[in-house]
């Protein structure tokens, strides 16, 4: 069907060596127009799609959990509620923390999420290993400070913690800082 190709533009003179031919010029302009249209249509959509990446991650708020005076040497379990806004979906996650005071009286809070495969550990729940955190899934064990003794590759995470007016506030999870 392409015998139309035989047509030859009569006004078309062979261009000089360095000059741009009319055809080349038109081709570049066409390329420019194409790029402009593609960009005009697609850029807003791309920005729309990557919006979650460009969102500022919030510092994370601290949540009031328990009175400072209730904390002892023995780890105690406390649960607290974290309000989450997940796009259009607002929900409340119930989180747990094991809080204790160390020998110097410093208070810290461990996250009970096992660093092996993410099960939930409990304090002193295995009779053969007293005074340790124990994970029921694969038998990972941790010390009071959250130091990994078996199975798990890393110590338990700690919560960011601050104390105000005798109350303990917990924030986001961070890598354990108690284990030396």
């Amino acid at each position, binding site marked *: *069907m*392409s015998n*139309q*190709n035989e*047509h030859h533009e009569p006004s078309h003179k062979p261009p000089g060596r360095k000059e741009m031919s009319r055809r080349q010029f038109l081709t570049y302009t066409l390329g420019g127009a194409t790029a402009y*249209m593609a960009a005009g*249509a*697609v850029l*807003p*959509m791309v*920005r*729309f*799609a990557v*919006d979650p990446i*460009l969102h500022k991650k919030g510092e994370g708020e601290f949540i009031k959990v328990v009175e400072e005076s209730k904390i002892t040497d023995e780890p105690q379990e406390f649960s607290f509620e974290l309000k989450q806004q997940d*796009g*259009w*979906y607002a929900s409340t996650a119930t989180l747990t923390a094991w809080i204790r005071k160390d020998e110097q009286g410093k208070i810290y809070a461990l996250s009970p999420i096992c660093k092996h495969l993410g099960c939930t550990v409990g304090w002193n729940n295995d009779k053969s290993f007293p005074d340790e955190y124990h994970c029921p899934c694969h038998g990972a064990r941790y010390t009071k400070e959250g130091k990994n003794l078996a199975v798990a590759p890393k110590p338990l995470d700690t919560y960011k913690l601050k104390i105000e007016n005798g109350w303990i506030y917990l924030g986001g999870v961070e890598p354990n800082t108690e284990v030396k």
Partner: protein
Amino acid sequence: MFKNVYNWIDERLDVTPIWRDVADHEVPEHVNPAHHFSAFVYCFGGLTFFITVIQILSGMFLTMYYVPDIINAYASVEYLQTKVAFGQIVRGMHHWGASLVIVMMFLHTMRVFFTGSYKAPREMNWVVGMLIFFIMLGLGLTGYLLPWDNKAYFATKVTLEIANSVPWLGPIIKEFLQGGTIVGAETLTRFFALHVFFLPAVLLILLVGHFIMIRRQGISGPL
């Protein structure tokens, strides 16, 4: 560099004839607005296609946020429109583009009708074009419900009542579209599936047919 890649592919697949068929051909004088200004009426087909491409792209991007579920649909639409950067523009493109496609397609159809371009040997292309028109209307209809707002809900109820009034098949059509006994969760997912998978698939097939026929038969001659 580009030349080498092209040659490498061409040696193996002989792509030159294919792309030449698609892109490299002569355009006659009577459709060229540079020669006759009135020939601008010939641009509506191309514009319809351009807007259709925008519709497909913006629709794909919208599904990154949209959920077809009666509890979350509205919230997700509102979220993507008001909270996501450029959400207003992307949803605006899809919303206004839907109207613009209909306008362009209408103008294109009128051009083809009044220039008599649907006559032999181009009958089939007219029929395919009309089918594209109906599919576009179907896309408009099913897309209308998706934000799950009051406007969508009540308009869809009316539409389904109209479908219901078709003799014999009416109740079946209505129940098929509705998916249940009320306009609700099942209706929304159905309309979503039609809007996002079934109708666009048919549309793309018809468009390919439309274009192949145009290239095969060439543009209709001067009047």
